[in-house]
């Protein structure tokens, strides 16, 4: 007769879950998970995919294409554009934004529109952008620190967006503000600047066809470190004018305060047009280093966009209004 000695680790037949019970449990878990997800989905608005590197649909070519630029202005690599950033909300080092902005969730996102306009109010990022055609705009980008890049932005003409809010005659300037949230923007925990970041344009500058609100880069959703979900791009001005991660747009009569001007008025003017003839206390602006090159090149008046924007400043002393 065979006597079986049971070891502690041996499983009794009665302990084994029957196939049918096992399948039932699986089915229950699956349904429960699906139901949960469905419930969550039904309460959330339908959002387009927004993770960086997600391709954007329906991007149209524009007159400012890569091909329209001179041969010595090749487009910078995605790696260069997304790893070398001044975005003090995520740290003051050039590599800090890429490192510290990864966790940042630029959704859901709302923009407060206020001031001298007929249709003020809060608007979601999606509603702000959706009515417009996305355009590729390949622009030179000149930082006040005397380096530059060529960036293939995807965006919408700023003027087209602003018109929807019907600015009144009092709207002589437009003011922008970046998100203030030290929890999500660790750089704001230090008083590097008087947060939130503030910027502004004269209304005619804002309405210039060159001015855009950018939502993409290289045909894809803009990465956090470059100012997700929506940022300004004004390519004839020094880079710091192109405010990132915008949450407020305000039309007003008076010239608005701007962050760098508040921090050092002698160094950063309201206009801050790229101008090789007007030197900065920290940098000669006569030349610049193109990222990817070692030796400097001459800086162009209005960053090479003289034809488009020189008319905005015909009667102005650009030395005084730097």
């Amino acid at each position, binding site marked *: 007769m065979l006597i079986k000695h049971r070891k502690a680790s041996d499983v009794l037949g009665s302990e084994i879950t029957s196939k049918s019970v096992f399948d039932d449990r699986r089915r229950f878990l699956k349904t429960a998970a699906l139901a949960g997800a469905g419930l969550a989905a039904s309460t959330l608005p339908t959002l387009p995919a927004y993770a960086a590197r997600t391709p954007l649909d329906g991007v149209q070519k524009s007159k400012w294409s890569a091909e329209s630029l001179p041969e010595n202005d090749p487009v*910078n690599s995605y*790696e*260069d554009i997304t*790893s*070398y950033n001044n975005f*003090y909300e995520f740290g*003051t080092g*050039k*590599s800090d934004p890429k490192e510290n902005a990864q966790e940042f969730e630029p959704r859901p996102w709302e923009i407060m529109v206020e001031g001298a306009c007929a249709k003020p109010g809060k608007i979601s990022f999606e509603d702000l952008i959706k009515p417009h055609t996305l355009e590729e705009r390949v622009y030179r980008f000149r930082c006040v620190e005397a*380096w530059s890049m060529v960036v293939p932005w995807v965006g919408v003409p700023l003027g087209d967006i602003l018109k929807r809010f019907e600015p009144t005659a009092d709207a002589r300037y437009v003011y922008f503000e970046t998100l203030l949230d030290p929890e999500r923007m660790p750089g704001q925990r*230090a*008083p*590097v*600047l008087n947060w939130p970041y503030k910027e502004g344009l004269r209304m005619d500058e804002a309405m210039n066809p060159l001015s855009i609100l950018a939502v993409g880069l290289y045909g894809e959703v803009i990465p956090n470190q470059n100012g997700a979900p929506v940022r300004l791009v004004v390519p004839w001005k020094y880079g710091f004018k192109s405010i990132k991660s915008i949450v407020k747009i305000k039309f007003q009569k008076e010239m608005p305060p701007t962050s*760098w001007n508040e*921090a*050092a008025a002698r160094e950063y003017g309201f206009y801050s047009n790229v101008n090789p003839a007007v*030197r900065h*206390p*920290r*940098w*000669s602006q*006569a*030349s610049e*280093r193109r*990222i*990817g090159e*070692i*030796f*400097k090149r001459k800086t162009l008046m209005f960053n090479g966009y003289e034809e488009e924007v020189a008319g905005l400043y015909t009667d102005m002393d650009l030395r005084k209004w730097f």
Partner: protein
Amino acid sequence: MIATTMSDAGTVAGAQRSKPAKKRDPMVWVIKPAVWVLCLAPLAWLGWLVADAVFFGGRGLTANPVEFINRYLGDWALRILLVALAVTPVRILTGWKQAVRLRRLLGLFAFFYVALHVANYVILDQFFDWTAIWNDIVRRWYITVGMLALLCLIPLAVTSTKGWIKRMGGRNWNKLHKAVYIAGAAACLHFFMMRKGLQYEPLVYGAIFAGLMAVRAVEPLKRRIAAS
């Protein structure tokens, strides 16, 4: 060449090495070599970053290598200068008199990084554009202040040899070498002015410098109090 002048102790230190050097001196055999290794490590790391970028497409130098190298060398010049300035406070606070024998080596290493920092600026950043360099010095105060630090350090590096101490006489030599305090202050200010906005990092360096100066000031004060 530099190695021999730097590794044998100067007269100031030499005076303290009066005991017969039969026993292996840990200062010569352990501590100084360690200082050499530690002070050359940042340069070796930079060399690796450059090689990695050139041969393997590494991105350690960032998208703007000239700026990165400039800041990296400047950072290390200032750090080592502060370590050199910490020698006397360490002696005061710990009573470890041998520390003084490291002072010249550390000072020369600080100058070495300063020289590389300036060379990078002149060669890679401005590419020998002397007009642009002169304009920078006259117009941009943080560069003016940086140049002041350099000007203070050059005579100190030149007169760091035994021969110069003899030629000048200890008293004059000591007086001249007080210029390192101006260089230290100027270097901290240069760093502070170069950063935009209100940033903590230069303030930390400034505070360390101020602390080191305070320790120096406290010792003669104590002596005076003890004497009275």
